[in-house]
């Protein structure tokens, strides 16, 4: 009986299709739940920083607040402005949300727990994360509103600038690993927590995190939607679920970049101490804890720092991060080559 089921799911095309669908659901459903509770955690953390209570009315400790918010967004009316470009206006939030989800196909949650274990996993992630800007830029143009357009332009310039330094960070990690496969990146960092790449590549970890803040348009780089200048930036004209998709996409992107940070610098599914009580905990839990840690820093930053001015944001990206990361790539390559530490092919 079990053998029959096994052959059905591994050989029959229908079985394979069902299996792939189930795998996708197994990633997206927890991800959407995580997004919902990330908004709750965010609001609770900001509330604590500002000595408030945060959401505490809907459900015990306000735990049902994200559900109530989601329901509200679904039930509201979707308004398409009369001067907007109808098709692109609707497509834009879909792109923003979709690009945040498809990237999860290559993220390894545990040893072997990955939907598509492809050889160019890092490049795939990098390619998908660079597509996120299209949702924003199309939204800004299709809205036919000056605030939305300004927000979109800011966002496009910002994301292109900071992607360059993220690219160099990825190259540094690749040099140390010798593979573009994300599972290999995690396997290369096995052992104690000081074997993880955050310590040997500490400046790159800092650059990666700050660039991640800029990529996801979070404070102190939330200029594309700075409410004091641009109303709500690129999603000024969006309402109900079209806005909801942008919002979900933004949070899913934050979780994605945290996951990428955990894979590249914090040892993925490895436990910090490679001995008994710690190694018994499933790898996926360690991975989730590391993501949660990075997400906490995201919220902490938002609660603490003021917003950058736009020219200073560009200066930081092009005049500070680009030379530093480029120099660090050269340095890492030199140390690996002349120290004889190049990874074996």
């Amino acid at each position, binding site marked *: 009986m079990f053998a029959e089921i096994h052959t059905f799911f591994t050989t029959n095309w229908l079985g394979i299709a069902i299996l792939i669908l189930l795998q996708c659901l197994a990633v997206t459903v927890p991800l959407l739940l995580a997004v919902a509770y990330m908004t709750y955690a965010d609001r609770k953390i900001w509330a604590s920083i500002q000595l408030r209570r945060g959401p505490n009315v809907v459900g015990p400790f306000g735990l049902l607040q994200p559900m109530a918010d989601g329901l509200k967004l679904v039930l509201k009316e979707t308004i398409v402005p009369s001067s907007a470009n109808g098709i692109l206006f609707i497509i834009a939030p879909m792109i923003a949300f979709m690009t945040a989800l498809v990237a999860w196909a290559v993220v390894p949650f545990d040893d072997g727990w990955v939907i598509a274990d492809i050889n*160019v996993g890092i490049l*795939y992630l*990098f*390619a998908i994360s*660079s597509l996120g800007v299209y949702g924003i830029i199309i939204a800004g*143009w299709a809205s036919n509103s000056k605030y939305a357009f300004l927000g979109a*332009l800011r966002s496009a310039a910002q994301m292109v600038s900071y*992607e360059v330094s993220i690219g160099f960070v990825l190259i540094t990690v690749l040099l140390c690993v010798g593979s573009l496969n994300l599972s290999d990146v995690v396997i290369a960092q096995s052992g104690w927590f000081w074997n993880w790449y955050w310590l040997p590549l500490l400046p790159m970890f800092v650059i990666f995190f700050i660039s991640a803040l800029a990529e996801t348009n979070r404070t102190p780089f939330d200029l594309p939607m700075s409410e004091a200048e641009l109303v709500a930036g690129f999603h000024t004209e969006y309402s109900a679920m079209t806005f909801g998709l942008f919002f979900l996409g933004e949070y899913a992107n934050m979780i994605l970049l945290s996951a990428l940070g955990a894979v590249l610098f914090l040892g993925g599914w490895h436990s910090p101490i490679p001995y008994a009580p710690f190694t018994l905990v499933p790898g996926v839990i360690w991975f989730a804890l590391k993501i949660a840690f990075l997400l906490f820093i995201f919220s902490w930053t938002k609660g603490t720092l003021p917003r950058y001015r736009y*020219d200073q944001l560009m200066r930081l990206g092009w005049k500070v991060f680009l030379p530093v990361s480029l120099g660090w790539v050269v340095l890492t390559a030199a140390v690996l080559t002349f120290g004889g530490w190049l990874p074996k092919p």
Partner: protein
Amino acid sequence: MILQALAFYVFAAITVASAAMVVVSRNPVYSVLFLILAFFNAAALFLLIGAEFIAMILVIVYVGAVAVLFLFVVMMLDINLTELREGFLEYFPVGALIGAVVFAELLLGVGIIGSGSTTIEALNTHGAQVTAIDNTRAIGQVLYTQYFYLFQVAGLVLLVAMIGAIVLTLRSRPGVRRQKAGDQINRTKDQAMTVVKVPTRGGV
């Protein structure tokens, strides 16, 4: 195999159709968006022949950076479409000539007409060798050794283009007060403030 052939024809058809739409569509923003669609399907075609590295680089460089800047520029242009249409017949012969030359070069290069350097058979045998190792590694092995000088020359061409762009846009305006972040950070309390004893009813 049938599935692969089907996928090839679907991606190829979308590539050609969206490439045609780039030229035909009236709104330049739509043109850029169709161009992006064409890039995507070209990347999918690369994936089908097993060149996953080229496919990803195509998406990262062209879709992720070049097309974003295209879109950026085109969105800010205030293009009068009727004016553009008027010049169409004037430019058509030149455009058609260039198109014909490029097409002929492509055919010659691939070796369908005449004896090009790389025939389709040669490409296929190359492909068979490369699949033994994954193609990122294969490119890495030849790019910095066998093709080192070509790679450097390509880099130099880009450098020249970059310097040209900077020279064209750089202008020094006199009398502009620039912000110097270093100076601001290095300012100390002594330089920034003075304590003044203000006499009563005297003012500063």
